């Protein structure tokens, strides 16, 4: 029975991995993993340097991009639109929201080439330029994720 359970878990792993969002840093970064709370603090700009003294550069997809919507709901339990008041208040204190890039390829390029940067892409789009520090399981159905995995 236990063997069957383990086999079932192993079989389900690739689907889980494909249906997930990977929070990424450059492969040369010394950061190995981050908790959800830590990633949230970085994206809210409450933590501005990492434990090795590099300044964090959090990077987002555009507000209407489905990955941004998923990331925001998971990380803050709010949509990017709901976060507008928070960012207006931060702006009043001279703190700007994370930088925005237009595509997952742009995210991979920016994160891999910018020390201290952090971003997110679909797990199926990962490559060796970046490493995963946190994984978010997506709620979207398998079909739509598969179609997203076929493009970048």
């Amino acid at each position, binding site marked *: 029975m236990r063997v069957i359970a383990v086999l079932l878990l192993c079989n389900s792993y690739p689907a889980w991995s494909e249906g997930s969002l990977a929070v990424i840093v450059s492969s040369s970064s010394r950061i190995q993993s981050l908790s959800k709370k830590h990633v949230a603090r970085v994206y809210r700009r409450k933590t501005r340097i990492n434990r090795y003294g590099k300044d964090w550069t959090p990077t987002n997809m555009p507000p209407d991009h489905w990955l941004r919507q998923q990331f925001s709901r998971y990380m803050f339990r709010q949509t990017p639109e*709901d976060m507008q008041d928070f960012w*207006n208040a931060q702006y009043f204190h001279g703190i700007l929201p994370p930088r925005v890039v*237009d595509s997952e390829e742009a995210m991979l390029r920016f994160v891999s080439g910018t020390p201290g940067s952090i971003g997110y892409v679909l797990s199926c789009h990962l490559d060796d330029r970046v490493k995963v520090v946190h994984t978010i399981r997506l709620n979207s159905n398998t079909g739509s994720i598969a179609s997203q995995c076929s493009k970048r």
Partner: protein
Amino acid sequence: MIKSNHIKCLLFIICLINTGGSTVCADTSGNGYRLGHGYRLDQLGLVFGGYASIEYNTLKNRRSKLNFDDASLFVSWKINPWLQFFTELEFEDAVTVEGNSIDTDDSNFSVERLYLDFIVSEPAILRLGKFLTPVGYWNEIHAAPLVWTTSRPLVTEQPFAKHATGAMLYGTVPVADFDLDYVVFADDSDDLDPKKVDMVFKNAFGGRLRFFFSDYTSVGFSYINFRLDQSQDDGDFNLLGLDFNFRHNQFELTSELTYRFSDKTSEQKALYLQAVAPLGKGFFAVGRYEYFDDDRSRPDVHLGIAGLAYRPIPGLILKAEYRFGQRNEDIAPSGFLTSISVLF
């Protein structure tokens, strides 16, 4: 470099004129102008922005007044990863139209904030300069485009000075499963603030803790010990503050209360409770109750505010409210207050 910056400034002005400030004028590098996020020059680490507000008030036993209330300019400069400069320069009450007269007598220019932030470590930032006194929820986000009413609750302006000049250590630390924002500060406005307007600390020290119990809920505690820069010697004041904020699905509930006491004068107690509910299409209903009790000067004041706010786009807000109350004639007279504010 200078030529390039001139071109960028020109593009910024053209962008503002062409769009009325309502759309995004940003290039892919992050540079450019966005309403509510200022004009950003990433290569230099500079951001220019600000806010402006116009008020029209009709209050009991007073003449109706149109007032160009606030025009503030922010300049933020990230000098390096560990050092950031910020200033807010404010032009207050620039023009007032009262009855048939237009005057600029009340206008004044002030340095609202001027400080350097040194990022000491991951959870600790040292701030040196003039900053907003970290008491309660409202005082640190008091700008007209960020708050729901034209009038300011008495609890956020009567018991303590709105600014402090000195040093502050602040940051966010994880405690169990929630975040804790902390602030400790020391003020020496007596020696450091050359232009004292309104109520100013002579000197002060204190702190604030704000617990985020969830993504929607926070509770804050504040304490300050201070002396005021006044002619009469009122001695040392102590102020205890408690605040609460809940915000979810555009509903908001906020409350602050303070208790101020001193060794020479009487006690002062104040609170407000404010609720905001979305009505759809950018409209919000706003209600607030306030209580203010200063034993020394007047009997208890009770205030009620019923208002409407309209936010057609983020950063722009139109507000209308009716204020009423008991024994409030001197401190916060009844009547209509309206305003238009923009974060630019």
